[in-house]
């Protein structure tokens, strides 16, 4: 068979057209990916804790998960029954409030009274979501708490927690800018020539004055405060490289001229544990508060696309451990022990990142939380490593950093087991080959909760989780004296 010259043309050009079309599609997709904004999230600040809640976008409307929003603030019990979604919320020391929503409808009931949502209620994977615009009103009605919502920056202040800062420029020999806060702060600090920028992710920092302030000073020329994407940022501008120091137990940041010439490339000096992997020494690196403190770092395992174990078809390990982590944090706080969560929302963090963050936080204890539907009761683990002759002060190998802390880790595990035993809860203690525990240079244990009996659903039971949380907190409190208070 022979083709004329003209007959070849469509055969050659068509695949080319298709290839170009697909290439354009791929390019558009990759550009869209590259330009995709950070995942929508709501930052919530309350007297007990600060946390972020992922937002869901449905038909252009932002939604927030009810359980995710309320759980850190009290005890929540929620269940979907067909199209109905019932929720009970009990604030600490308060009375239980009931709410009932209907999937796909904006009519609901709060405490037996009719309540209209600004958009339809939705249910996804057994989780109930309300429009973000209704979040502050729902909190007000369910928790009876004063709530202030900054919709543009998606920051929600529950109770009187907002922390306004104060600026004072002292012009002695060289200018020094004193930034004072009501409580200690721990912002991420980034420096670049002429700027030092403080990013507050966990602190409810707000500005009561104008967002932009100008100074009549040759070194420090002004500040700009802004809020966006659940964070607050304070940018201090200057005509020379600036550096920041903490004072007054972290309640004051002093910005002055940097003593050394700045690096050519902007360097970031992260302060929050989750950003520690990129930490670089910098001339403008702030001096951290230097007082000793006893900090427990709680690591709810998994998160994001890594759901962990599927406890039931609608209950993922990542959700169970986050709820448990918040309970443990509250129980520790009630015993006067400070505790931070390595993740306080549904985000994916790699094992190496977790270890790096844990080591950067220098906790007195690292507590990894897991959940499974196999076995019964509570499983308490220490690291499965041979004991080493290296002391914690030595340079520790990454793969076996935990080996130097096995004695202390064993003491904590034994103490938690004793508390479980006292509460007549079934438990098992074992060493386990579990990462990232091996890489953590601090006393460390892992706790895995399994159902207390044959009913797997009981793993999410509030009373059961509360008992486990109390056992862990009491166990840690009992050995607090043995664990070294680590200087930050």
């Amino acid at each position, binding site marked *: 068979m022979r083709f004329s010259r003209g007959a070849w043309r469509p055969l050659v050009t068509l695949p080319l057209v298709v290839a170009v079309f697909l290439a354009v599609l791929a390019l558009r997709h990759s550009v869209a990916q590259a330009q995709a904004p950070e995942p929508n999230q709501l930052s919530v600040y309350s007297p007990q804790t600060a946390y972020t809640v992922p937002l869901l976008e449905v038909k252009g409307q932002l939604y927030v998960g009810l359980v995710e929003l309320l759980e850190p603030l009290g005890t929540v019990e929620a269940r979907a029954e067909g199209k109905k979604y019932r929720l009970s919320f009990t604030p600490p020391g308060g009375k239980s409030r009931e709410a009932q929503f209907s999937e796909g409808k904006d009519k609901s009931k709060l405490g037996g009274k009719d309540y209209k949502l600004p958009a339809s209620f939705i249910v996804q994977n057994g989780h109930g979501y309300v429009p973000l615009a209704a979040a502050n009103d729902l909190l007000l009605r369910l928790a009876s708490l004063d709530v202030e919502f900054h919709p543009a920056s998606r920051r929600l202040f529950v109770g009187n927690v907002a922390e306004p800062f104060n600026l004072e420029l002292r012009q002695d020999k060289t200018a020094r800018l004193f930034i004072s806060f009501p409580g200690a702060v721990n912002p991420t600090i980034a420096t670049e020539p002429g700027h030092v920028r403080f990013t507050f992710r966990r602190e409810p920092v707000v500005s009561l004055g104008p967002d932009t302030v100008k100074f009549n000073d040759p070194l420090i020329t002004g500040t700009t405060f802004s809020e966006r994407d659940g964070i607050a940022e304070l940018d201090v501008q200057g005509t020379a490289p600036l550096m920041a120091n903490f004072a007054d137990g972290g309640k004051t940041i002093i910005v002055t001229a940097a003593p050394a010439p700045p690096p050519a490339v902007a360097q970031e000096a992260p302060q929050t544990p989750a950003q520690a992997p990129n930490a670089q020494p910098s001339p403008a690196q702030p001096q951290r508060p230097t007082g000793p403190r006893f900090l427990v770092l709680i690591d709810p395992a998994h998160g994001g696309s890594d759901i962990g174990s599927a406890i039931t078809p609608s209950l993922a390990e990542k959700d169970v451990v986050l709820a448990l982590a918040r309970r443990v944090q509250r129980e520790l706080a009630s015993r006067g022990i400070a505790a931070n969560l390595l993740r306080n929302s549904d985000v994916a963090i790699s094992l190496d990142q977790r270890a790096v963050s844990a080591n950067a936080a220098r906790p007195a204890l690292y507590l990894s939380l897991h959940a*499974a539907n196999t076995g019964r009761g509570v499983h308490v683990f220490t690291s*499965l490593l041979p004991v080493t002759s290296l002391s914690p002060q030595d340079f520790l190998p990454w*793969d076996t950093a935990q080996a130097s802390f096995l004695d202390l880790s064993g003491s904590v595990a034994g103490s938690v087991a004793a508390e479980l035993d006292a509460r007549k809860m079934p438990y098992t203690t074992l*060493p386990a*080959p579990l990462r990232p525990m091996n890489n953590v240079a601090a006393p460390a244990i892992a706790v895995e909760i399994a159902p207390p009996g044959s009913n797997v659903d009981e793993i999410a039971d509030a009373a059961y989780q509360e008992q486990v949380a109390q056992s862990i907190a009491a166990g840690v409190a009992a050995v607090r004296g043995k664990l070294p208070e680590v200087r930050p």
Partner: protein
Amino acid sequence: MMRRLVAMFAILVVIALGLAFYALQLKRKVVRDEQLAAQQQLALAAPASGPATPVTLYVASDADGSLHKQSVSIALPVERTERARAVLRALLAQYLQPSTPHPIGDGGDVRDVYLLGDGTAVVDSNSAFADSHPSGVLAEELTIASMVLTLNASDPNITRVKILVNGQERETLAGHADLTRFYLADNLGHAVKDTP
């Protein structure tokens, strides 16, 4: 001309979608066949010739979070690596029974065991072994400990074990237990409870 272009493009798209669907079906069939083959092989337990030999299996129990010694008699090959593989398959066969105290999911199998001169055994499991294994710290640890101790009991020269999945190193077994490391038999005795 434009109509012909559109028609050709539509045909190409349909063909591409058809091929993608066919490839997906093919992939699923391969996985199904692999699992079926593994189950059929495991049903045979230890393929061997010769008289039945007593071996000690360390069988995991999720209920009490421990390993229990269990003696079984199986026909063992003469060759060391084949013998090690046969013992492990006898252990996994226990876990695949409906009444097992430690289920590991369907299709789990040992493809090969390689013995190195320094007392190391490298166990190459199939994909189903890891993919269908229940996720949990305790469940995964018990599986690994039972395999290592069973190997050590059948051949005391095997003192450390590395587990691969489908010939590749994997970060964890099913999200928890570390598979990047070597496991020492001496380090796993904590989980053993002797059967009364």
